[in-house]
């Protein structure tokens, strides 16, 4: 079984939203777009009661819910073996769900199967309202029959989802705020459930420990230091009560439950002393916890039970190689995973059609797959490079407020290379180059496909900007971009006859001395002035050694640094639609003014 789609109304930061899911979903998006909201919504719908946190007003959109402001979540569950409702009477019968049919191509749920490709599905809903008189949130989880006007809080009680089915579905959640140090002990439900599933309760060892605690080799009350005290207490009591019991001191309550509760995980490295988990580094512990969870998944899969895992930010505490290994293991063992991440590395590991880019515009949540459909064998070269080879960089760029699509790969490289040392050197005030790095993500455009790339990215990102040269080609791109059904937010152009190398020249011009540093690094530029450097750069596109040297020269010189910062700052402004002296809007195109 898997979740095919999810609709959210009035939950946390989401006023309205609809998402469709494949098997192994990776949710990507800026802070506060609603990644955690999606995971928590799934938990309300499918999680066991223990996973569900108590709801308050803050769980409603706007935090001040009126009686009619219902929180309303609906998930569609599909992938029932054989697609025959009669083969799944636990799910489909009077008193349980009504069978419906999921159309994967359109994402529509149909009441009857009129197309053989539609899959059997059912819908689970959660509604909640804030009960003002009692200051509590009333929640109901039910089988959602249709989107009509029937209110689950009305007379006819809705058909609840029995815990047995929730258990069968097997939804497990690992939150970003995890406290793993108790995970490998009986205080953790995960640990107990895994033991139960594996029938691995170590009863013999626990009973042996218990017996040892009951009759210790060296009892505390017999210690020479304390014995006189204990004996005199015993004597006094004996004078008052006939046949009085004797005081002994035992570790724990000496029953098996106390022994289980007292167990605390330790780690031993080499022959050293074992150290309790709470004193270990977080990485080791979270890895142990996660693999315990996976062991439970393996046991459930063997027993033919469902295992769906929601994992927030697997990159936490783990080195990149381990992240990758972990994500692959999770995906192999589960019927469906939901992973939220801020790491482009993790996002890039997933199938590009399963990476969902979340966007939240004033409470309206949308989720578009990074790639709408799998690339066909005939896909163009630039598409392969963009979506497969370079996808870590592309996803990274898409996580920014604005995405800049430059005309070519050299612009991408040069901007990034010049920016890096500037960000390292920036002081506490005055220099604003860093805002470019925070707000604008530059994608590596392949084969000058600025128009095609912009059109593709506009589907998944609300603010796509383009940067073109000041030549005839550039003018043509400007016209083509303006002719798109959905044109980019901003088109930026270098001045007539110029390109990015000329802008670099303008930066170096701030103090011609800066060029002297370059002369030492690049033999070809021994006698070159600024114009010579620009001319050389134009012939050596994408020469990383040259770019590094130029970036170094700029960051070493204060006047150049100021100009570079100004360029990046005003470029940021242009991308976000803010006017500045350096960019003049000519025919709706932002043209650089050196």
């Amino acid at each position: 079984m898997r979740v095919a789609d999810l609709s959210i109304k009035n939950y946390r930061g989401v006023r309205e939203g609809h998402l469709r899911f494949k098997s192994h979903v990776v949710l990507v998006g800026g802070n506060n777009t609603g990644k955690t909201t999606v995971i928590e919504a799934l938990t309300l719908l499918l999680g066991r009661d223990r996973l569900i946190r108590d709801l308050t007003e803050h769980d409603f959109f706007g935090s001040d819910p009126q009686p009619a402001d219902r929180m309303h979540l609906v998930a569609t569950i599909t992938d029932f073996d054989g697609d025959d409702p009669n083969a799944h009477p636990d799910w489909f019968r009077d008193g349980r769900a009504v069978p419906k049919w999921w159309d994967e191509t359109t994402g529509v749920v149909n009441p009857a199967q009129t197309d053989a490709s539609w899959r059997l599905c059912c819908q689970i809903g959660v509604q909640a309202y804030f009960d003002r008189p009692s200051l509590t949130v009333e929640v109901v989880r039910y089988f959602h029959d249709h989107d009509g006007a029937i209110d689950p809080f009305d007379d006819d009680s809705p058909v609840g989802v029995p815990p047995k089915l929730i258990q069968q579905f097997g939804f497990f959640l690992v939150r970003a705020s995890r406290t793993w140090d108790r995970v490998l002990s009986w205080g953790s439900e995960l640990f107990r459930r895994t033991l139960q599933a594996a029938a691995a309760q170590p009863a013999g060892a626990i009973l042996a420990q218990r017996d040892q605690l009951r009759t210790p080799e060296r009892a505390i009350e017999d210690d020479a230091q304390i014995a006189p005290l204990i004996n005199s207490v015993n004597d006094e009591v004996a004078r008052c009560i006939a046949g009085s019991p004797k005081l002994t001191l035992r570790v724990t309550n000496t029953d098996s439950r106390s022994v289980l509760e007292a167990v605390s995980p330790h780690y031993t490295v080499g022959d050293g002393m074992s150290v309790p988990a709470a004193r270990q580094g977080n990485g080791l512990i979270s890895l142990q916890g996660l693999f315990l969870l996976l062991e439970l998944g393996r046991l459930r899969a063997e027993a033919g039970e469902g295992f769906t895992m929601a994992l927030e930010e697997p990159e936490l505490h783990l080195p990149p190689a381990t992240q990758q290994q972990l994500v692959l293991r999770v995906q192999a063992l589960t019927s469906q995973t939901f992973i939220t991440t801020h790491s482009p590395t993790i996002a890039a590991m997933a199938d590009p059609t399963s990476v969902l880019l979340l966007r939240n515009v004033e409470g309206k949540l949308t989720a578009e797959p990074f790639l709408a459909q799998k690339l066909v064998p005939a896909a163009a070269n630039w598409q392969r490079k963009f979506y497969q080879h370079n996808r870590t960089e592309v996803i990274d760029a898409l996580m920014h407020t604005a995405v800049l699509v430059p005309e070519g790969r050299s612009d991408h490289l040069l901007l990034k290379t010049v920016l890096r040392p500037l960000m390292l050197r920036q002081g506490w005030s005055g220099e604003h180059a860093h805002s470019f790095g925070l707000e604008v993500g530059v994608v590596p455009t392949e084969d000058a496909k600025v128009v095609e790339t912009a059109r593709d990215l506009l589907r998944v990102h609300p603010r796509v900007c383009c940067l073109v040269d000041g030549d005839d080609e550039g003018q043509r791109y400007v016209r083509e971009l303006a002719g798109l059904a959905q044109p980019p937010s901003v088109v930026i152009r270098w001045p007539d006859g110029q390109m990015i190398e000329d802008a670099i020249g303008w930066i170096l011009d701030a103090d011609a001395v800066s060029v002297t540093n370059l002369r030492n690094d690049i033999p070809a530029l021994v006698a070159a002035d600024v114009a010579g450097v620009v001319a050389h750069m134009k012939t050596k596109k994408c020469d990383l050694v040259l770019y590094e040297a130029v970036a170094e020269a700029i960051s070493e010189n204060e006047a150049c640094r100021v100009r570079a910062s100004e360029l990046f700052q005003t470029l940021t402004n242009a991308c976000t639609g803010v006017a500045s002296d350096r960019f003049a809007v000519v025919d709706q195109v932002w043209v650089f003014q050196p």
Partner: protein
Amino acid sequence: MQRLAETIVAAPPREGQKVLALTFMHGARRRLDERLAAVPGLGRRYECTTLDSFAARIVRRWQSLVVQMGARVPTETEYDETVAVAATLLANPEVVLWVKASFPILVLDEAQDLTRSRLDIVQSLATELTALIAADEFQCLDATLRPNPAWEWLKEQEDHIALEKPMRTTVSALLEAATAVRAAEPVHAGKGFSVNFTPKPAMAGGFLNTYIAGLRGSSVAVITPSIKSFAEGVVAWTSQRTNSRGRGPYPIVWEQAETKRAEAVMDRIVLPADATCSQALAAMVDVGDRALVREVASWLDRLGRTRNKSIITREVLAERLQFICANQRRFQRPIDRGLMAMSVHGAKNREFENVVILWPAAVAGDDDQKRRLLYNAITRAKSACLVLVQLQKQLGQPPFA
């Protein structure tokens, strides 16, 4: 019930499965419930519900299919439309199989009262479910159901159960009278059954007072085929007057149809045009029907908590009262105790300790219909039945002779 026990032994319901027992509205549900509880091997694995609320459930759960089929979704008070839509839904095998997965066995009594679309529901269910259906064609009072469609269908089935003997009583005079009416033979008085000629309401009322006094508090249902001047006069006389032997008065209440009851309550409600919830509740409290006030109060409370509903118009309140009254009558058991008066139709499928039948000069329908009416009235009694006729010559005519 014997057959049900055999069926359960032959094919025991799986975990989570139950027997679906359908009845018509009014009291029958509780009696069926008691009888099912006594079936060996069944335990509590049965669900006893009225046919109409079963239909409402099917429509509510399969609403999106209703919409796709192009039908209108009926409102909760449109009972006949709901039944018709449920019948259309159950024409789909997948819906029947969905029911069967929970309820492999269907039990239905009084099948003669099935209207066309209610019969459709039962017939669709019977295609997959093991159906145990009992009927007595003679107990059908609805002249439009003749010939009786359910009876015609059941006769074609291999193993139908025909109930031709009343089971409610062991009093032989009552059994003989019922058998005689059914066979179109003259009825005879006996211990527990008598027919008397009382031309005037005053005379019948006096007779009734003496009769009620003799029963020493045992319950009495006054049943009549037609609530007109004779029956109304007798009930009014008994309710207000003392007879020559000093018996009475005995206040008897006519049972009202649900729509009448709701209208009567609305007539007494004083409500501003745009009343708030609390004003509406206050107006209800003034009317004084505690059961109704409780229902309305919980409805208003829920509205206030879950919707932004602050204005209650007269129309909204009236509609809700209709709904509450209809539900009380349809889904709950009426009180079959004390002194009450009702029509033969209103008494259908119920039982009373004692029955007094008021037979006026004019009763609509042919001789067959009159026999059915009288048969139905007589068979409501468990201990005794007294018939008061308005015309002497009626004693020599059908349904009495």
